């Protein structure tokens, strides 16, 4: 039950893009075409989940025991940057086809603030899923990261679908490009607000 709550809350209620404003730059940057948006979502999904697990362990077993929590930001960003590199090399070796699909997005992901954002959130924020407020354990953190990145993919793919149609319309000159895209996202965010009653 608790896991279902985490999943619904992370995908719909607290959507990482539309409610938490994390990872907006790549969201606006690569959502022009449905195919690239799908590729980016896949890569982000993979990296967020992996990075959250690794940073969670780094924080728990390296930083906290030695009282080095103040190095969190710098340690996390280094872990994420290294991880992205490793994933890129591993993917190239193991699955060239997947590398073809996701490869070009991987270097962009280091500076996607959703990755660092989720990693910091799970080790600092107290959640209230299933009773008392508590920091997430490893299982919950993993599910939270996975669900959050699915939410990211969902919003991204939905938006790319709309944007493909938007491109064919006659938009007033000053609105062309990003302004109309932002206004569209605003309406999507409003629609997602409707989910806010689902999970208490």
């Amino acid at each position, binding site marked *: 039950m608790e896991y279902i709550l985490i999943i619904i809350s992370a995908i719909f209620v607290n959507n990482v893009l539309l409610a938490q404003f994390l990872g*907006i730059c790549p969201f606006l940057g690569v959502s022009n075409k449905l195919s690239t948006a799908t590729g980016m979502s896949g890569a982000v999904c993979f990296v967020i989940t992996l990075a959250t697990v690794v940073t969670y362990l780094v924080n728990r077993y390296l930083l906290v025991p030695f009282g080095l929590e103040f190095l969190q*930001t710098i340690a996390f960003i280094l872990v994420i940057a290294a991880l992205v590199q490793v994933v890129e090399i591993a993917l190239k070796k193991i699955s060239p086809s997947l590398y073809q699909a996701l490869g070009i997005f991987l270097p962009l992901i280091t500076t996607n603030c959703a990755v*660092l954002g989720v990693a910091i959130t799970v080790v600092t924020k107290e959640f209230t899923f299933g009773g008392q407020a508590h920091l997430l354990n490893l299982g919950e953190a993993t599910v939270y990261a996975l669900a959050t990145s699915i939410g990211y993919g969902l919003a991204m793919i939905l938006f790319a679908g709309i944007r493909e149609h938007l491109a064919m319309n006659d938009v007033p000159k000053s609105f062309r490009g*990003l302004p109309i895209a932002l*206004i569209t996202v*605003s309406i999507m965010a409003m629609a*997602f607000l409707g989910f806010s009653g689902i999970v208490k």
Partner: protein
Amino acid sequence: MSKLGLITKGFVKENPTFVLVLGMCPTLATTTSAMNGLEMGLATMFVLILSNIVISLIAPLVPDKVHIPVYIVVIATFVTVLQLLMQAFVPDVYKTLGLFIPLIVVNCIVLGRAEAFANRNSALDSALDGIGIGIGFTLSLTVIGLVREILGSGSAFGFKFLPSDGILAFVMAPGAFLVLGYLMVLFNKIAKK
């Protein structure tokens, strides 16, 4: 480019928010009021200026292959310094801005200026560039925050001028996107003539 030009180009011509469209996450997330926007802008400016200076100094010494990780480490160091200083001297501001202070590390503006400007210019020019872009960013955030605060809570910089609350949606997530979208339209209309 003149020294003054280095500073003023960030205001309009290379405005990080409306023209370069960088650092969108804090722009949208922290502008629930004019004050929050201003504080976030100043925090980013602090990191931007210092990282620009240091990177312009160390750039010739860093091998090309590892320049990005090195820049990120430098930026992350200044962000952590900022975090510690804010916790010590302005804990309330630190609490309000929350997650978005550590996230300055991945703000594309900071790394972007390091890559596009600081690594090939002198320390003084880089500092001026940081000041200019930083002021541009701060101005944009303050304006967005001000518009959202006026429409959403009926106040400006915390001074209430409406007895009621205003349109709640502007303080919430959809309002952020909407206000930024319309301000961009306005900016295009005025600046790109």
